[in-house]
């Protein structure tokens, strides 16, 4: 259209401008009171979509021994204390929740399960990643040992350093998800979470809790979903 009456053009322009009003809804994010709930919904939407993307049989990449960084270049990373003073001699893992055999489990019982050794990538939420060598028992094997109801929704852990985490059952049952007691074929040292930590190649690093003391199988998570998650990190955190 080339020629148009000025008045008509103004009218059309106004109408078209109004039709753009829905864009202003984005401004809701600028309202302090609404910001946190809106962002919370955004993260929940992302977590929900992440759960849909997860494939139980799809493995995370594994690497040759040559691609693994040296032990010295695998960072000690913790939220607070790299040595919460765990009594390694008398350590046990407390098991509770939807399991047939709750109680205390020793490291020897966990080490009696088939040992998996895998070179996998540890991805930190900060943006760095390292390929390391991890060894331990499959969480799924341990869940079978304790008679866990695998139709439960979550596996939650508590740690000696007051850290805590929780996982969706599908990830806990993933064949690469480990109760890890070895790195680089040596028993875990204190900085890496001795005597037992999680190693979850399909999750962001902060899900791989160290210094485990308790494992609970549950259908409901309480107010405590995870140390960082309760401060705003994504709970699902799937890779």
């Amino acid at each position, binding site marked *: 259209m*080339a020629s148009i009456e000025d008045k008509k053009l103004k009218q*059309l322009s106004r109408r078209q401008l109004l039709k753009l009003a829905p864009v202003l809804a984005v401004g809701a994010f600028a309202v302090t009171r609404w910001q946190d709930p809106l962002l919370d919904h955004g993260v929940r939407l992302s977590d929900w979509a992440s759960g849909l993307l997860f494939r139980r049989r799809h493995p995370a990449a594994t690497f040759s021994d040559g691609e693994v*960084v040296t032990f010295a270049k695998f960072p000690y990373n913790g939220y607070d204390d790299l040595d919460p003073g765990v009594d390694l001699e008398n350590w046990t893992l407390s098991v509770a929740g939807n399991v047939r055999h709750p109680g205390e489990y020793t490291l020897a019982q966990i080490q009696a399960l088939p040992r998996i050794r895998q070179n996998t990538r540890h991805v930190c*939420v900060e*943006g760095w990643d390292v390929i390391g060598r991890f060894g331990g028992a499959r969480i799924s094997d341990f869940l079978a040992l304790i008679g866990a109801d695998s139709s439960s929704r979550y596996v939650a852990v508590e740690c000696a350093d007051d850290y805590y985490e929780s996982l969706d059952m599908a990830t806990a049952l993933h064949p690469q998800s480990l109760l890890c007691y070895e790195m680089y074929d040596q028993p875990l040292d204190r900085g890496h979470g001795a005597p037992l930590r999680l190693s979850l190649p399909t999750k962001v690093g902060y899900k791989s809790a160290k210094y485990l003391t308790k494992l609970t199988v549950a259908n409901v998570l309480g107010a405590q979903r995870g140390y960082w998650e309760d401060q705003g990190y994504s709970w699902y955190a799937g890779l």
Partner: protein
Amino acid sequence: MASGAQTGMPDAQPEARMQLVTAAYEHPWAIRFTHWLNAAAVAVLAASGLRIFRAFPSFGAKIPEHDLVNIPQALTLGGWLGGALQWHFTFMWLFAGSGVLYLAYQLISGHYKTVLFLPRDVKGVWPMARHYFLFGPKPPATEQYNALQKLAYTTTVLCGVASLLTGLVLYKPVQFSWLAWPMGGYHLARVWHFVAMCGFLAFIPGHVIMVVLHGWSNFASMLTGWKRDPEYLSRRSAE
């Protein structure tokens, strides 16, 4: 520019006040809507992305860590890493959604033909660049967008696609391992994600400066869709 309507007729002759102007409906609603949504999303994603990058401002190893740059906190959004991730994980949906809508509309409507940079546009790039940057003669405007504009817009859309795909790999490197492979792996995807953002940031100042230089009617057309006295129309009618 000739608006051709300032005749100043007295009130006694209302029919003579019918002012005819030249105008074109340049930007359909879908394009304007997605443009502004995307602008908001890019701003939020860049600012929160820079905050995320602050957590580990390097593309190298964690040990030893060599920080590349200290991005001022004032340029970032989210306050801390967790907050920035919340913004990023929320606005990525807006970015992807508006991008997919935009591309779908362009393809289905055929509107893309006005803006897609094609091999035949190559010869028009240099004369236009010479005009803008070296004060060369202004090449005649025969289309809605000149060759340099088409190049800039097409490149930016490609940056958007690259941002989305590299972001997908960073977010879900295990589920999208097949997509990480052509990017050179997870680690390099982070570099490409950053490069794509630099492409966006390089485009925006030029885009904004050109819009300012071309005046209000040009800017208003992205709000109302209607552009008064487009140069290519006046030229066509003059010929």
